[in-house]
């Protein structure tokens, strides 16, 4: 059926531009213009004061052929993403399942799980530094109750990144709430029918809950990947990328290149390479989603 488009008076067209112009201006000035400028910077050796010259593809060649920290930071970041994102998804799903119960006081728990997500990142990160302290920290204290000698979390190259990952999982409040919303969208009638047919809880979760919540999981997965590749605050504050570059993430490399070493051109190159990496991975996830994401229609 052909959709009839309404003719809108010119006055309303003006109103459209008027009301969208603040956002449009902001987008142009603060998003699009910096993006365009940074593409240009990729081909220059510009520093913080704006002086530089055109150097062609030298920045790209340097990233791939000369900069060992480029690969090191990328590997660290992939490590973080590959471990923290699935763990976060799994934890968010499990906690959301628990919070989906109709129990008294469940609101308190929903709030409690969400609060870490909205607390100040820097302050909380500093606290985690104390929690992971190998001599006085809570984590090693609890481990000692079981007779386990905890590692020097933030000083040990093997345990520093796992510590950062654990910190990341603590802030999954947002994913929990989104998953919870997805769970609450599942029609009760399906569970009732399943009960009538004698389905166990495990069957209900795997055959009803999981398939129907996959769109939400897909959203959380994509957002988790995008956020994971941009991990910066925790390693920057706690370990400064150490010990021995064990927690030196890609965003730290971009930050250091631009703001510490004054190599804005190179930093822009790294930023655009990250954009391409994230695009490729999210496209892969997008393509595979047709095999595991179930939509009602």
């Amino acid at each position, binding site marked *: 059926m052909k959709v009839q488009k309404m003719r*809108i008076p010119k006055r309303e067209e003006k109103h459209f531009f008027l009301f969208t112009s603040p956002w*449009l201006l902001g987008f*142009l000035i603060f998003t699009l213009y910096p993006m*365009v400028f940074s593409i*240009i910077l990729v081909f220059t050796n510009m520093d*913080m004061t704006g002086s530089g010259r055109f150097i062609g593809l030298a920045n790209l060649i340097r990233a791939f052929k000369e900069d060992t920290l480029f690969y090191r930071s990328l590997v660290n970041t992939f490590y973080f993403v590959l471990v923290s994102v699935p763990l976060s998804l799994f934890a968010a799903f499990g906690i959301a399942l628990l919070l989906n119960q109709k129990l008294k006081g469940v609101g308190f728990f929903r709030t409690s799980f969400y609060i870490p997500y909205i607390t100040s990142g820097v302050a909380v990160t500093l606290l985690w530094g104390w929690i992971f302290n190998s*001599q006085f920290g809570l984590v090693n204290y609890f481990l000692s109750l079981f007779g386990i000698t905890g590692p*020097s979390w933030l000083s040990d190259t093997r345990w520093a990144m796992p510590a950062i990952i654990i910190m990341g999982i603590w802030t999954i409040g947002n994913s929990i709430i989104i998953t919870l919303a997805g769970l609450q969208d599942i029609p009760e009638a399906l569970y009732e029918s399943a009960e009538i047919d004698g389905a166990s809880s495990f069957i209900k979760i795997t055959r009803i809950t999981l398939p129907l919540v996959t769109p939400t999981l897909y959203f959380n997965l994509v957002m988790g990947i995008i956020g994971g590749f941009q991990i910066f605050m925790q390693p920057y504050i706690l370990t400064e990328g150490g010990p021995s570059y064990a927690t030196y993430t890609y965003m730290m490399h971009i930050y250091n290149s631009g703001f510490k070493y004054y190599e804005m051109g190179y930093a822009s190159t790294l930023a655009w390479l990250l954009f391409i990496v994230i695009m490729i991975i999210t496209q892969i996830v997008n393509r595979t989603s047709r095999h595991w994401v179930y939509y009602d229609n």
Partner: protein
Amino acid sequence: MFICRLKHISVNPAKGDLHMKKYLLILFIVVFMTGLTACGGGNSNQSGNTAAGSDTATGNDSAAGNGANSEQEISGEITVFGWGGGEELQSRKDATKVFKKLYPKVKVNEVWLPADNVDVKLDAALAAGNAGDVIMMSPDWKGLRTKWFEDLNPYIERDQLDLEALFTEGVDGGYVDPDGKREGMPATASDFMIAYNKEIFDKAGVPYPTNDWTWDDFANIAKQVSSGEGANRIYGIVSHWILQSFAPFIYGGAPYNEDWTKQTLDDANTLKGYQLFGDLVKAKAMPDDAAAKSMPMDQMFAAGKAAMYPLGLFEASTIAKNIGSNFEWGIVMPPKDPSGKTVNIKFQTGFAMNKDSKNKEAAWAYIKTVSLNKEVGDLYSKVNLPALKESADTTFANLKIEGTDIAMLDFVTGLQDAITFPWGGSIAKAGDLYEQVWQEVTVQGKSAEEAAGAFASQIQAAFDSIHQSK
């Protein structure tokens, strides 16, 4: 892509669609062209400093103008750009008041930033052309912003200033580039002493260190005064961040050569210096990384958990307050290298003139005042070591660390052979790599040779990139 999607939100068919697409396409092109034209190649320095007034004194703002101008002749407006906090900032503001008294016809606009903010904001201001006529700077920038600064040699020659006689010994090092250009004039400096807990030494039966001690003596003493285990461990020396700067120099080595073109990390003496601290950590005379993170190092010393502490002048009063009456303590010069020279690190602050200043005479008058005026030197003495010898040898040297009987005089002596903080400014990237070497040795327990082997080539590449980008 962005424009195509807008088909779906068109409010006016046919004509409206075309109208919208055209509008947005034009906007996009404008943004792109703006980006291209804003990308300055080469020298993008602006033509002038908008905050500076005109030079009415000589009608000529070149350095080799018409001779020195009297206070009464210099007028106009200048902007001073710097950083600081607390008492230090107050001393700088008071210094400006002294200048205003001497040059009543000059209007001074002051821009003071928090120290951790200054790099980004200064660079943005320099790029925008409004960084001020007088810019606070430090030699440890290692020429990072030299292209913005006026060479002050002609002004010094014109005013016939004998800087060697006027300045505190050691305060002026680093302000003159290897090519002879004087970037700035010193205002203040800060160096280090080794503070020691007399009670820990008495308990260990170890004599107090003297100014003649060597780094081998230091290492032995640190091991001898250490005691206890675990959380009750008393360390010989705290794991202070400045020790990494001392390490390459303590046996006469150096991390790089004088014109920052070659790393000398793999020099035997340099490696020996790093190894000394690695051995101290292994012997538990210095906290390992985990223990160092368990308590801030200043509190570790103040709480009597470490026998020695590398005490910077800038933190002396804070440490003294923290110690209070907990224990008796003293200070001693840092140890000597094998040639008998005291190894010390200094932080320096001075002022430079923006080469695009429109009021260079007033800017020079300000720089000269805050560097060489006795009243200003005496003001600085309350918080730092003044550049002016007269103030350093009298007002400053007569002071004691707050709440103690410990004289500040040793800080003056210690400045003489001190080395400018080696990792700042254009050396920052190489500095981060040197820090990795330090971590490999003191945190990972590797030998200095192993660490050097892993990082020497990367450090050399970092030095190469400094000079390629110039």
